[in-house]
């Protein structure tokens, strides 16, 4: 079907000039993903996002997702495709919030209310989904319940500072969307972030509720993290170190370092590389476990909104996870302004 564009030439008037963009029209975005992993997993997922500006400088963002996986062995565990969305086989609201930014002089004040990812470390969905990695970092895998990309807060968030240095605080109740759900209560997240040249550094702290399946404890979970990012000429290096007490008497310490490389010479290919490790110690039970993983992969833009992602992994430390795994996924995304 041919798309017709009508060009009307007027005889007299002033010249049309591009104008500043004061707001963003409401935009809808959809993504469909299908994937296979040698972890005995087939997966399918879809996300629908709607975002834009409304009156008074207020903007909104809403996202719903459905994702499901099939495993022939139901006792088998795998975190494949869990990069940023839960595979719970039901439709869920992920984020839904309104926000407003203020710019008094050179300062920055932002308020957000609704349902959002806790501002801890490198937390934005786009930093984990469709960046070339098909699994979340181990320190953000919900089975360990320390910190998860499936955790959400329902409350308010405030960021203040100057562009070079900001402090952000969020207060809310857990609204998790994964298989591991935290108990009800009040969460507090505080994050400080600064940058110098191409380097971004942040420190984060979260006081939150233990998961519903954790041993009974009156204590909260306390999670502390440090994150670094550096980018230059198509190379992005990232890292997070996270420590906390996910189960009261247990301690998790984990880190990852990865690289996302997209140079001009690589055309549609983005290369990714990650090394990571997670240690879990429980003084009460005497357990001392770890999981280590190395990932190499690529994201290939095939055109037409279609992207191919492949990951090859080597992992050790947990017998439930095979030492080698290969994940592949195809995502088609479309945007309608």
């Amino acid at each position: 079907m041919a798309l017709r564009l009508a060009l009307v030439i007027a005889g007299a008037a002033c010249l049309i000039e591009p104008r500043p963009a004061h707001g963003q029209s409401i935009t809808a975005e959809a993504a469909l993903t299908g994937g296979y992993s040698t972890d005995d997993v087939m997966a399918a997922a879809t996300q629908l996002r709607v975002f834009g500006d409304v009156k008074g400088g207020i903007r909104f963002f809403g996202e719903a997702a459905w994702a499901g996986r099939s495993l022939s062995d139901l006792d088998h565990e795998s975190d494949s495709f869990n990069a940023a969305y839960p595979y719970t086989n039901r439709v869920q609201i992920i984020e839904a919030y309104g926000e407003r930014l203020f710019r008094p002089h050179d300062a920055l004040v932002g308020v957000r209310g609704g349902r959002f990812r806790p501002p801890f470390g490198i937390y934005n969905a786009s930093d984990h989904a469709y960046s070339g990695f098909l699994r979340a970092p181990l320190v953000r895998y919900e089975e360990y319940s320390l910190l998860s990309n499936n955790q959400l807060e329902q409350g308010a968030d405030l960021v203040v500072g100057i562009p070079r240095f900001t402090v952000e605080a969020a207060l809310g109740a857990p609204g998790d969307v994964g298989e591991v759900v935290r108990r009800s209560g009040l969460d507090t997240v505080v994050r400080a972030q600064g940058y110098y040249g191409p380097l971004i550094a942040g420190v984060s702290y979260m006081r939150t509720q233990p998961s519903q399946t954790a041993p009974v404890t009156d204590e909260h979970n306390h999670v502390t993290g440090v994150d670094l990012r550096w980018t230059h000429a198509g190379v992005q290096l990232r890292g997070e170190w996270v420590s906390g007490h996910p189960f009261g008497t247990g301690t998790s310490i984990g880190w990852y370092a990865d690289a996302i490389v997209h140079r001009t010479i690589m055309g549609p290919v983005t290369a990714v590389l990650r090394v990571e490790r997670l240690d879990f110690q429980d003084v009460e039970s005497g357990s001392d476990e770890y999981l280590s993983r190395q990932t190499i992969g690529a994201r290939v833009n095939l055109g037409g909104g279609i992207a191919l992602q492949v990951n090859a992994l080597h992992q050790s430390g947990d017998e439930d996870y095979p030492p080698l795994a290969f994940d592949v996924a195809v995502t088609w995304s479309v945007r309608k302004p």
Partner: protein
Amino acid sequence: MVWLEAPNAPRPNPRPDAPRVVLDQRNLSFSPHVLVVRVGTTVDFPNNDRVFHNVFSFRDGKRFDLGMYPVGAMRRVLFDQTGLSRIFCNIHPNMAAYVMTVDSPYFARSDESGAFTIAAVPAGTHTYHAWRPGAVSELTGTWTSGTLEVAWP
């Protein structure tokens, strides 16, 4: 977007009060998605999002890498050569925009219905160019008067 060739059109002198041309970053996307500017135009790239962005253009047109900068900060780019610049964010691979730089004062971007209006076009026969995201190449032709309809194959 559509523009008319105008090799002899005078270049305007930059005015300090001229309206700024902005390619905004918010909600992990560029706004607008498509921008057409005249060669010599400086485009503002403010970060009005809640995360860092690293805007770059490596392939065609104007090549630049603005580095990583946070919410509240702004970078500027002078588009001093004609052609299509594909704009991306190094941190967020789903972000993309296009800046078409043309050597003509007669250009416009379509509205939602696909209609353009270009004003103050001198009489005569003009060569037009049309482009849209996803198009392999530009459409070209000539126009003299009346309404022009451009049909994409």
